[in-house]
C-alpha cells in the first residue's frame, strides 16, 4: 500500500486559510503515505503531469488529492491516474476548499480540519480496490417526448443525423403551445406559418416515427438500452383512414368547450385540433360524446366518408427500445383564478395571455376579431397586467417566466393594429427584454404604437356598475391609478407541464419544487440530466422563449447524436454486488431497489439467493443499508470504507 498525497494551494483559495505545508507534514505521518507534496494548482496541465510522474517514480498505488470539491475535478484526476497507468478508481478527493477554506476564518482550526479531512481520505482510499467500468451495447434510436417546438426541432436535428427518432405526443396533434400563438415576437412572424413547415417535415421525415395521442407508460433500463412502454390512447377514429375532411366535427350535435382555445370558445366532442393540425385527423373525447355518455347519436360514424370512426377502439401498449430519451414536455400556465383580487376567474372579460392570443388568432373563437366575451362589443380600453403568477412569493411562484414582458408588448402592438383607436395600458414591475431586438420591440410598442406603460402592480380588479375597474399604482409618479377597462389580459406565468412529476419519476430524473426538470449543471450541462441517457429541451427545464428553446433543442440533438455515435459505452462501476457465499436469501434488498436491479437466482441445491444486475444498478446503496447480514457491498462506498472515515475522525 503506497499512498501519494497532493495538497492543492488553489492559489489563495485554499492557502490563505489552510496551512498547506502543515497538512503535507501531517500527511506524511499517516500510515501508508509514502509521498506527500503541496501543489499550486493541482488541476493545471503541468501539475497533472507532475502527479503522473510522481505516481510512476514513487510507485504509488493509491492517490489522495486534497483540493476543491470532487464534484468539480474528480473526473479530471481520474484521468490523470489512468494516464499514469493506475486504475482511475484508486483515488480519493478531500474537499478542503468549498467545505473548509471557503467557509472558515480561523487558520489554526481550518488547518486541523483539513488534516482531518486528509486523514479520512487516506483511510478510505486504503480500502479502495481497482474497478473496471462495464461496457454495454447501444440501441441507436432516440425517443423524444413532447411534440411542441422543442420536441419538433430536436426530432428533426436527430433525424438528420441519421438516427431513427420516435416522437411521442399526448395531444392528437403536434405543435404544442406555439401552435396556439397568432404571431411571435419580435419579428411578428405568423407563428403557424413558421411552425407548420417544421410540423410537416416531422410528419414526412423518413427517420421520424410520429406517435400522437400517446403517452409514456413505463420506462426501464439504462443509457443505450432503455425499454419504454408507450400507451397509444384510443381516439375512436382510425388515424390511418381519417382524411381530415371535418364533416364529423361540423355535424356533431354535442357541445363542449374548445380545449385548443383554452376554454374560451365552443367545440365538439369529435374535433380536429386546429386547421393546420399534424396529423390532420379527428379525435373523439368520450367525456363530451353523446354516444359514450348516453348511447345515442353516432352521427359521425354514419357521415364519415372514410369509415374511420371506431367506437370499439381500445388503448394499445407498445414496447420499444431506445438508446437515448429527450423530454420536451413544455409548460402549463398559472391558473389566474388563484388571484381572488383579480376576480378569481369570475369576470369573462378578464383572461390569460394565451386565451387572448386565441382571440387575436384568425383560427380562434372570434376569427381574429377582438370582441369582449361578455357582450361581443369592441373593447376601447384594454389593460395588460404583467407578472401574474410570476415574481410572486405569496403565490409560490418567486421566479420570472422570461417571456411575459415580450408577449405582452407583442399583444399590445397587435391590439393596436386591430383597433387603432383603442387605449392600451400595461402595468409592469420591470421590463425583461434581453434577446436580440427585444428592447427595440418594447420601445416600439411605447413610442410607435402609443401603448401606455405604467410602472406599478395591480392591487385589485373589480366591477362597478358593469364596468371593469383596474386599480393599481404608478410608482414613478407616486400616485394610485384606476383605469376603467373593457378587457383585461393577465400575463400569466409558466409552470411545469401537467403530469411532469409523474413522468420524471418514470424516467428517474429529478425536478425542482416547481416541477421543472433538473439539469445536470445549470451552466455547463444545461441539456443533460443526472440520469445518463435522458436529456432535456425547452420550457420543461425552465421558462424560455422560442429562440432559446430552438437553440436548446438543437443542442440536445447534438448530445443525443454524440451519445448514440458509439457502438459501446461504459457504464459506471460504482455499483453494488452481493457476496453470493454469504447471502441468506431473505430478499429484503429486492423489495427496496428503486431500479428493480435485483433478481432471485437459484443455486444447484434449489436454494435461492439475490443477484444484482450491474447495468441497472445506479449505485444508491439502499440495498446495502437494508441488508442485515451486510452481504451487499457498494463499490466506492463500502461499509469498511465509510467506517474507516468515521474512525479517522473520532479515533484521530
Amino acid at each position, binding site marked *: 500500500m503506497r499512498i501519494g498525497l497532493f495538497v492543492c494551494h488553489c492559489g489563495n483559495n485554499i492557502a490563505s486559510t489552510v496551512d498547506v505545508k502543515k497538512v503535507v507534514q501531517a500527511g506524511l505521518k499517516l500510515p501508508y503515505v509514502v509521498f506527500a507534496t503541496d501543489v499550486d494548482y493541482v488541476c493545471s496541465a503541468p501539475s497533472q503531469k507532475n502527479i503522473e510522474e510522481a505516481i510512476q517514480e514513487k510507485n504509488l498505488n493509491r492517490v489522495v488529492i486534497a483540493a476543491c470539491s470532487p464534484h468539480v475535478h474528480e473526473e479530471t484526476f481520474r484521468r490523470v491516474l489512468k494516464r499514469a497507468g493506475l486504475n482511475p478508481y484508486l483515488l480519493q478527493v478531500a474537499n478542503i476548499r468549498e467545505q473548509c477554506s471557503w467557509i472558515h476564518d480561523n487558520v489554526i482550526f481550518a488547518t486541523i480540519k483539513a488534516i482531518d479531512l486528509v486523514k479520512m481520505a487516506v483511510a478510505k482510499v486504503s480500502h479502495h480496490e481497482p474497478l473496471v467500468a462495464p461496457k454495454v451495447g447501444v440501441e441507436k434510436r432516440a425517443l423524444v417526448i413532447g411534440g411542441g417546438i422543442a420536441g419538433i426541432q430536436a426530432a428533426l436535428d436527430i433525424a438528420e443525423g441519421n438516427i431513427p427518432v420516435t416522437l411521442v405526443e399526448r395531444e392528437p396533434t403536434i405543435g404544442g403551445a406555439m401552435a396556439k400563438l397568432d404571431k411571435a415576437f419580435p419579428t411578428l412572424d405568423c407563428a403557424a406559418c413558421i411552425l407548420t413547415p417544421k410540423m410537416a417535415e416531422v410528419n414526412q421525415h423518413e427517420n421520424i416515427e410520429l406517435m400522437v395521442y400517446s403517452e409514456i407508460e413505463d420506462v426501464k433500463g439504462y443509457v443505450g438500452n432503455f425499454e419504454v412502454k408507450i400507451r397509444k390512447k384510443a381516439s375512436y377514429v382510425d388515424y390511418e383512414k381519417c382524411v381530415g375532411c371535418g364533416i364529423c366535427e361540423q355535424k356533431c350535435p354535442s357541445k363542449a368547450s374548445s380545449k385548443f382555445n383554452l376554454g374560451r370558445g365552443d367545440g365538439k366532442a369529435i374535433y380536429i385540433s386546429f386547421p393546420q393540425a399534424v396529423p390532420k385527423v379527428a379525435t373523439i373525447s368520450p367525456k363530451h360524446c353523446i354516444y359514450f355518455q348516453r348511447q345515442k347519436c353516432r352521427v359521425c360514424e354514419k357521415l364519415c366518408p372514410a369509415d374511420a370512426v371506431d367506437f370499439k377502439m381500445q388503448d394499445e401498449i407498445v414496447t420499444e427500445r431506445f438508446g437515448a430519451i429527450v423530454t420536451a414536455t413544455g409548460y402549463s400556465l398559472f391558473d389566474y383564478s388563484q388571484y381572488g383580487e383579480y376576480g378569481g376567474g369570475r369576470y369573462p372579460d378578464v383572461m390569460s395571455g394565451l386565451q387572448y392570443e386565441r382571440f387575436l388568432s384568425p383560427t380562434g373563437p372570434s376569427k381574429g376579431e377582438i370582441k369582449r366575451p361578455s357582450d361581443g362589443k369592441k373593447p376601447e380600453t384594454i389593460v395588460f397586467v404583467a407578472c401574474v403568477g410570476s415574481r410572486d412569493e405569496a403565490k409560490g411562484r418567486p421566479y420570472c417566466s422570461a417571456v411575459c414582458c415580450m408577449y405582452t408588448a407583442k399583444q399590445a402592438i397587435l391590439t393596436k393594429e386591430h383597433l387603432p383607436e383603442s387605449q392600451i395600458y400595461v402595468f409592469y414591475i420591470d421590463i425583461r427584454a434581453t434577446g436580440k431586438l427585444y428592447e427595440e420591440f418594447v420601445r416600439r410598442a411605447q413610442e410607435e404604437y402609443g401603448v401606455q406603460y405604467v410602472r406599478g402592480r395591480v392591487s385589485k380588479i373589480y366591477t362597478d356598475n358593469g364596468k371593469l375597474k383596474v386599480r393599481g399604482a404608478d410608482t414613478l409618479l407616486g400616485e394610485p391609478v384606476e383605469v376603467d377597462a373593457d378587457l383585461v389580459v393577465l400575463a400569466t406565468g409558466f409552470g411545469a407541464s401537467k403530469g411532469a412529476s409523474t413522468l420524471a419519476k418514470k424516467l428517474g430524473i429529478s425536478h425542482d419544487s416547481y416541477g421543472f426538470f433538473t439539469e445536470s449543471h445549470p451552466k455547463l450541462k444545461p441539456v443533460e440530466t443526472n440520469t445518463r441517457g435522458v436529456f432535456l429541451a425547452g420550457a420543461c427545464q425552465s421558462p424560455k422563449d422560442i429562440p432559446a428553446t430552438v437553440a436548446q433543442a438543437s443542442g440536445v440533438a447534438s448530445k443525443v447524436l454524440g451519445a448514440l455515435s458509439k457502438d459501446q459505452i461504459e457504464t459506471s462501476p460504482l455499483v453494488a454486488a452481493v457476496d453470493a457465499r454469504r447471502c*441468506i436469501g*431473505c430478499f*429484503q434488498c429486492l423489495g427496496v431497489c428503486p431500479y428493480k436491479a435485483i433478481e432471485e437466482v437459484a443455486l444447484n441445491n434449489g*436454494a435461492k439467493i439475490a443477484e444484482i444486475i450491474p447495468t441497472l444498478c445506479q449505485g444508491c446503496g439502499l440495498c446495502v443499508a437494508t441488508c442485515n447480514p451486510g452481504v451487499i*457491498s457498494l463499490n466506492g462506498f463500502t*461499509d469498511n470504507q465509510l467506517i474507516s472515515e468515521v474512525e479517522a475522525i473520532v479515533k484521530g
Partner: protein
Amino acid sequence: MAGKPIEMRNKKTKEQLENLKTQVEETLSQVDFVIGYAKGYDVLHPTPLFVRSTKDAQALIWDDFCINNLATYLPSQKRPGGLFHPHEKIGLVVKGCDSRAVIQLLQEGIIDRENFKIIGISCQGKVDVKKLKNRVPIERVENAEIKEGSIELTVDSRGQKYPLEEVLYSKCLSCEYPTPLIYDRLVGGEGSLRSKGPKEFAQDPYHDVEEFEKKGVNERLDFWEQEFSRCLRCYACRDICPFCYCQFECIAQTRIPHWLSQKTASKENKFFHMFRAMHLAGRCTECGECERACPVDLPLLLLHKKMNKKVSELFGYKSGINPKLRPPLIIFQPEEKNIEEEKWE
C-alpha cells in the same frame, strides 16, 4: 443437577398433554417431523424434542416450565445441519407468544405457510427458573406443586410457598395473547392467566420502559455501561432469537464489513446490542428468550421493548399480529403522519 425428580402436579396442563400427544401423532402424517418439548437434564429445564414417530411422541411433556420459543427453528438457516432445506415439512408446538414469531416470520417472507403445521396450545404462564434460583437452592427441590395462585416447593423436606406473580416470567404477567394467533390445530381452548399480575404490568406492557425513561440521560449512560461490562459476547441472545436468522453471517463477527472488534469492552458490547436492537426494530415479538438465554442476566428485553415502543408510536405497527403487513423499516409512506421535520430557525 440430578436430585429427585420434581413432579409437577397441575390438572389443566396434564389434560392438555394428552390432547397434545394426539395432535402431534396426527400431524406426523403431514410433516417430516414435529418439534415439541421433552424433559431436559432436570425437570425445571425442558428441552426441544424432534418427534418422528408415535414412539418418539410418548416422550413429549407439557408443564409450567415449557418456555422455549420453538418458532426459532422455522427459518431453515437455524436448524441443525443448517442452510436451505426447503423441501422438508415441519410441525411445531407453539404458545401464544411463540405464535407471534411465526406470524412475523411469515410477514418477512422467510418461511412458506405450506411448509409447516402449527399445533397451538393455550398457555397460563410459565415459571421463571431464574426467579426460583433467587429464592431456593434449585438442586435440592424435591417437589413442586402449583395450587390456586402460588407455587409450593418442598426443599430439604420443608415447604416453601411463593405467590405465582413472583415466579412467573414478567412477560407472562402482561400477556396479551394467551391463545396462539395462528395454528392448524389447537390444544386447550382459551388460555387465561392463573393470577392477575401486579396492576402496573397487567395494564401496560411497556411499564418498565417508561420507568427507565424517567432516569436522567447520564444515569442511563452509567446503567448501560455497567450492564454491558458483563457481556461475554457469547451470542446466545442472537442464536436463540427467531429473527436473527443471519446468525451464521452476523456482522458482529465479520471482517467485511468490520463493524465490531472482538474486544469485550463495554463500549463494543453496547454497540453490538444497540445494532441488534436496530436490526430487530419492528420485528422483535418480545418473546424474551434472549434474556432467558443470557448467562449474565443482561436486561435485553428492556432494549427491544423500547425499540418496539418507538416503532409503535411512529408507525402504529405491532409485530407478529397480521401476516399481511410488512415490517415498517423496509417500507415507507410518502407522507409520515408522526414524523415532524426538524426546524432550524
